[in-house]
């Protein structure tokens, strides 16, 4: 309880007749790095802006630390914010940008300069004070925006899709730097993103949202391995969906094949079986193993060290499955389009909805 830093209760937001957020309840601990993850239009940015006070919720309360900040204007809340567009002041130098929040506090100039230098070193851009933002690359500008937000030592750091405007390589590099920075400073952070790889990589906990509701809150492992809803299973990572029939005695029938599963059903019922590609194993398969079926390769999508392989098996049904096979394995076994190979399904990895 004492570790709770930010508490949202019953947050609702409607724009006219459109319900953007419905009954959001969320608790964030001090020093946590939380990601709001979801597709466009799910309400994640709206929720962030409500926490910042840039939008006002239709109903619901927000507590930060000991304070109820539900109806406070942004200037009275305690946070720093970084936008996707960086919003750096183009006519001020980098040093003036970073010092922007400090100048208002009537601190002596020397102290401000020292703090700016400290921050620039923290984000890995020492000595860039006299430059103008236009002289920096996108990733560097983003880091300056971060330094500016952290200058006043806010209790909460809000990041609104900070990496979306960067190219792929910079994105990967910068997300690690943001995470390292957050570890070092211990500031409670909320990052909004639509990139699930980003969220899985840096977050302590992920809040998966869809159409204004929270689908699941959990650690990256929990979200990935134990998705609570079909949406989460489908949105995070790749998924195969098969129609099947559960039987009592841990039996599952898919197509014309029988499988062992981990769920003991009371009665027969139809289910959708959710399987991740990496849970369809090409090896190790020993003779006599359960849950083995044969499939034929239809398409190989080359992605470098491993491939997305599309397979079809008459025993399972008419639809295609996606399997991950490493380049080395394909070469070893001499597999190509048309080849047949056995695949094993791990019973404990099957999810049913």
């Amino acid at each position, binding site marked *: 309880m004492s570790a709770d830093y930010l508490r949202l209760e019953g947050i609702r937001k409607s724009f006219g007749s459109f319900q953007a957020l419905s*009954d959001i309840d969320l608790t964030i601990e001090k020093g946590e790095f939380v990601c709001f993850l979801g597709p466009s239009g799910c309400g994640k940015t709206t929720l962030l802006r409500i926490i910042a006070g840039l939008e006002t919720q239709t109903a619901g309360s927000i507590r930060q630390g000991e304070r109820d900040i539900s109806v406070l204007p942004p200037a009275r809340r305690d946070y720093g914010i970084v936008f996707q567009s960086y919003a750096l002041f183009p006519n001020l130098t980098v040093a003036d940008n970073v010092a922007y929040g400090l100048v208002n506090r009537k601190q002596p100039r020397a102290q401000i300069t020292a703090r700016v230098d400290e921050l620039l070193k923290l984000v890995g851009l020492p000595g860039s004070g006299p*430059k103008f933002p236009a002289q920096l690359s996108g990733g560097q500008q983003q880091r300056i925006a971060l330094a500016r937000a952290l200058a006043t030592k806010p209790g909460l750091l809000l990041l609104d899709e900070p990496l979306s405007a960067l190219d792929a390589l910079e994105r990967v590099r910068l997300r690690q730097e943001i995470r390292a920075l957050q570890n070092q400073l211990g500031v409670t952070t909320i990052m909004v993103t639509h990139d699930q790889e980003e969220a899985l990589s840096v977050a302590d906990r992920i809040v998966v949202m869809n159409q204004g509701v929270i689908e699941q809150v959990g650690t990256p492992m929990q979200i990935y391995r134990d998705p609570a809803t079909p949406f989460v299973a489908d949105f995070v990572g790749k998924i195969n969906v098969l129609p099947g029939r559960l039987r009592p005695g841990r039996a599952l029938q898919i197509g014309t094949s029988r499988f062992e599963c981990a769920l003991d059903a009371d009665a027969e019922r139809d289910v959708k079986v959710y399987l991740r590609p990496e849970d369809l194993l090409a090896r190790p398969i020993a003779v006599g193993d359960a849950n083995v079926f044969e499939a034929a390769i239809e398409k190989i999508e080359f992605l470098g060290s491993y491939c997305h392989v599309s397979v079809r098996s008459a025993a399972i049904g008419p639809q295609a499955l996606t399997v991950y096979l490493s380049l080395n394995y394909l070469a070893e076994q001499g597999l190509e389009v048309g080849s047949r190979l056995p695949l094993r399904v791990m019973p404990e990895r099957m999810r049913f909805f």
Partner: protein
Amino acid sequence: MSAVLPLPSTTALRQRAHWTDRVAHALMLLIVLALVVFLALPLASILVKSLQNPDGAFVGLLNFTSYLATPSLLSSLGHSVWVSLLVTLITLPLAFGFAYALSRSCMPFKGLARTIALVPLLAPSLLSALSLIYWFGNQGLARGFIHALGFSEIYGALGVVVAECFAVFPHVLMILITALSLADARLYEAADALGTSTRRRFFTITLPGAKYGLISAALVAFTLVMTDFGIPKVIGGNFNMLATDVFKLVIGQQDFQRGAVVGLLLLTPALFTFVIDWLVQRKQTAMLSARAVPYRPKRAPGFDAAMSAFVLLISALMLAMLGMAVFASFASFWPYNLTPTWRHYTMGLVDAEVFDAFVNSLKLAAGTAFFGTILVFVGAYLLEKTRGLDALRPVVRLLAMLPMAVPGLVLGLGYIFFFNAPGNPLHGLYQTLPLLVLCTIVHFYTTGHLTAVTALKALDAEFESVSASLKVPFFKTFWRVTLPICTPTLLDIARYFFINAMTTISAVVFLYSPGTKVAAIAILNLDEAGEAGAAAACAVLITAGSTVVTLLFIALGWWVDRRTQAWRHTTTR
């Protein structure tokens, strides 16, 4: 997908306002108040006056019916309409051809041609009328030409039409140049790849692309001619038009009621223009996407030569008009003694009235530029970049767009009715320079407002959010960030106000007093008194003054750019 829960019937939460928000709200209320007092109420008083009799009693539509029953007044309406239509029909194709030559051919000296064609913007509109009189009037150099064409004299409809063509041409040209320059080269390349003929290309790509520009330009031309006062006054002779009627009725006959009716009639085409333009703008699709490639005309010797000839012809006509005014201002005693002399200029300077009038013009222009720019920019900033008082914002937007629909004559008329009313506490402002300044600011408000809004919208939308999160009040960010970035825009707005205040006649003609007479009015008085040379000299002086100021503004812009906009010219390392 998610269940739609029935919402409890509580009212939505409202965020508390920070004290800086309240400051912004107070300022916005002040601006609304200013616009209401200096725009909405004067317009309302015209409406009220038109529904009253001279004793102030409400008489319904009596004034309107009596107006429609007066043949002479009704004929003014007809005259104004067909003259406006004719001028529009003449100027539109000519300006289109000129703009086409500038943007779609490889003719030489484009910059020079463009400058010549736009110079009349720096002069009072009646300069062309004065010039025409010198060319074709009773003592004109080429009056035989008029007789040969079958006209008895230049005064009247002929003079008005020709003079208005000159005056309106640069306004129409500017709009069409913009419309034709919004061309995506890729469309033409695709047409070429498909083997499209030049004729077909013109009618299926070029014309439709310029469609909204053409509509806009036509409406602007029509409205400008309908509501122009200076040219009909100088060269209209006995040809009565709405604009001169208003003046005669209100100033000459003190018939405020009939004057109000005519004022409302003058308001109608402008309002009509405004509504059509607004409807058309909503249907306009973006002509240039971010991926559009600018169109670069290719060399075509025959075409280029034809375009050059056309532009040359029009430029020559323009220069003839301008040149004649300058020439005549130096002529000792037209037409008998054409030896050059400074007499008209020095007499004008020595004659205290004209010198004072010129100083008044400068004062008016400077005041309008300074206060107008501040008012417009602060108003636009509060509207676009601050939060709260949501109910008031549509009102501010409407009031800011309204001046574009109100001709200067009508505005001046409203000011007479409103500020001269004895019961009005602001009565003391009547016929003072501050009122002239306010009237001129309001008259040209909309263009300044739209320019400011465009510039502000180009700034990152989150500056104010960042500022709030860093606990910096918005007006500090306004001072440190918004103003410096928008300084070039501020200069543009100030220059627009200045030049228009120097050359405007229609609003000030109702509001000046002997002490606040401006140079544009002095031209009218001199012309009436038969001092044609001095009138021409005064017009040339105004034009020269405007040109000097424009050059000063350009120099100032260059200096500001070097001193404060260095950050724009840095590049990524």
